[in-house]
């Protein structure tokens, strides 16, 4: 390999330093923490007649409802939708979804196909949600986060030709290892690495980066055992493998593609990750069935009022309005998303009100695309996992079920946050699908010939969420988080937005358990 330019070197150092700095920052934001779940909760029996009104039959509301019911509380749950689950949700063929603004999509997926518009991954250490999924009898299958044969893609690298994750990762590690080995040999690391450790470091770099006997990363068996061969070894006479040529360091750096190989290193995206068989929504459905008549559906809450003895929620039918009805209990656990809750009159103190008002939900968009055949498997040997692109669609994910089946398949054709998601929310569902097809065709030219139908969910247009997850900033968390979580008279809140695991169902579970534990302590020791 040729020596990198000074500029390239600085860029590479930036990657390493940047990642560390980023990790530090994210840790402070609470993003990188593990779950606080400590095993099944056990509440003592409350005084006879103790009652809790729960607003929202999402994961937080239903976990709380099951545990409070089991402890002996009288529980009632009001839910806006006609189904349980909230953001725990899967769309199947035959489903109809109407977003704010009135656009209605009739999902046309084949049987067995689905899109999880919301959460789709369950990291192994999210033990709370996994506990409840198991308790509900929901079957799990592995979620493939990292697929070495999927692509990383940018229009700015390699003429826009998608690159296999495997090659980008092998070459990036290999080049970095070679540079470090060179520096070590030139005694440039003397201050950081002792003489005794230097030998070990050299061995480690050779093994980690697939360097050859001269500590160089170049075309040969060692590097091809990582990045793959031009011709794979085989049996019989045609058995000789042909090594492949690594990408040049400078091209690799300038492509930006090195940045797309890291997601699986993150604690929350490390193996093993699970997905419920048949769609994430199976968890919510099972919880809803468990709670049965305790959940009242199609209830739009319009007012929440507490007094000395209890809390009264006023609600109307979410489909056709009609006469207001009321529900009342001694206590109220509210899991309504803050963008909606901020608009519902509720007599809580100024600190909680301010905390609710300042917490919008993030923009996010997911697009599901059904294709006539599983060309990513048949033509490209991609079985599950994720392709990343710097195009607006950001994420393409391959179905992680029914591998090798002859039938159709639904791709996650786009999964994007931030500005691209804002832009997509301003478009019609058909335009969002069109954009996902346009981006995806640059990676998979089979798209136009094989596409059948799709569905697009922009979370700011979801009528019962108005965003995908609480949009916390570090400053806002310092100022408002404790006020959001504190018991205010007889009202307290739970959701992922009242957790340090924003956007994760584990945040909802641990938030709910923490909330009802505090509530219960207040009930049994007034």
């Amino acid at each position, binding site marked *: 390999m040729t020596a990198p330019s000074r500029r390239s070197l600085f860029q590479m150092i930036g990657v390493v330093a940047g990642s560390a700095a980023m990790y530090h920052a994210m840790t402070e934001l609470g993003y990188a923490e593990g779950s606080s779940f400590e095993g099944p909760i056990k509440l003592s029996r409350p005084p006879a007649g103790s009652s809790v009104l729960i607003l929202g039959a999402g994961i937080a509301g239903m976990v709380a409802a099951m545990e409070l019911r089991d402890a002996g509380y009288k529980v009632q749950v009001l839910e806006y939708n006609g189904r349980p689950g909230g953001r725990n949700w899967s769309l199947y063929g035959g489903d109809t979804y109407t977003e704010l603004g009135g656009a209605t999509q009739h999902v046309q997926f084949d049987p067995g196909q689905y899109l999880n518009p919301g959460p789709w991954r369950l990291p192994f250490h999210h033990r709370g949600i996994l506990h409840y999924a198991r308790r509900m009898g929901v079957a799990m299958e592995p979620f493939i986060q990292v697929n070495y044969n999927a692509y990383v893609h940018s229009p700015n690298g390699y003429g826009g030709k998608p690159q296999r994750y495997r090659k980008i990762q092998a070459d990036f590690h290999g080049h970095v290892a070679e540079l470090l080995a060179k520096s070590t040999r030139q005694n440039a690391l003397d201050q950081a690495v002792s003489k005794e450790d230097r030998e070990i470091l050299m061995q480690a770099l050779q093994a980690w980066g697939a360097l050859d006997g001269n500590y160089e990363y170049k075309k040969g068996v060692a590097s091809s055992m990582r990045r793959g061969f031009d011709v794979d070894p085989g049996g019989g006479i045609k058995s000789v493998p042909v090594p492949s040529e690594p990408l040049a360091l400078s091209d690799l750096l300038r492509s930006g593609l*090195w940045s797309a190989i890291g997601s699986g290193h993150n604690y929350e995206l490390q193996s093993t990750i699970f997905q419920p068989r048949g769609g994430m929504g199976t968890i919510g459905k099972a919880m809803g069935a468990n709670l049965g008549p305790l959940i009242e559906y199609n209830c739009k809450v319009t007012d929440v009022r507490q007094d000395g003895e209890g809390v009264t929620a006023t609600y109307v039918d979410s489909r056709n309005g009609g006469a207001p009805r009321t529900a009342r209990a001694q206590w109220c656990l509210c899991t309504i998303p803050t963008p909606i809750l901020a608009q519902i009159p509720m007599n809580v103190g100024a600190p909680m009100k301010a905390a609710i008002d300042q917490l919008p939900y993030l923009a996010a968009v997911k697009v599901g695309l059904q294709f006539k055949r599983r060309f990513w498997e048949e033509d490209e040997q991609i079985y599950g996992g994720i392709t990343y692109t710097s195009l607006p669609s950001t994420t393409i994910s391959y179905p992680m079920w029914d591998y090798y089946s002859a039938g159709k398949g639904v791709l996650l054709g786009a999964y994007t946050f931030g500005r691209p998601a804002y832009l997509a929310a301003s478009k019609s569902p058909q335009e969002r699908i069109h954009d996902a097809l346009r981006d995806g065709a640059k990676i998979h030219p089979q798209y136009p010939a094989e596409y059948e139908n799709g569905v697009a969910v922009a979370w700011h247009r979801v009528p019962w969420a108005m965003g995908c997850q609480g949009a916390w900033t570090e400053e806002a968390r310092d100022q408002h988080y404790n006020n959001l979580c504190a018991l205010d008279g007889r009202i307290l809140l739970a959701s992922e937005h009242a957790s340090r695991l924003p956007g994760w169902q584990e945040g909802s579970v641990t938030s709910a358990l923490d909330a009802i534990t505090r509530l219960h302590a207040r009930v049994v020791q007034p």
Partner: protein
Amino acid sequence: MMRRICFVIFLMALPASAADTPDMRGAPFAMQGGEAVYRGVCQGCHMADAKGASGAGTYPALAGNQKLAEGGYVLSMVMNGNRGMPPFRDHFTNAQVADVVNFVRSHFGNHYKGKIREVDVQALR
């Protein structure tokens, strides 16, 4: 070049929330002019006709909305957000903010006097 690199850094570094990519990222909004900003971003919630929408909660109508009489109020909402509205201070330039505020105050049946200037936006930064 650096802009692109930075964008992609986030694509990977991110022990992000539930996302592979954190919010507040992505290419800067390129549209120019109040109408383009509204069509590109604002109508995602306030809708193409600026009449808002209602589900479990409501995106308020901007059409014929008397609250828009006070330009400073609209400016503050765009910059800081409140009650479900996200802050856009990190997404838009001063010109984009001023343009879209002036656009919504002079369209959709609104005819409010007085323009927000870029210096007014800058004053909130």
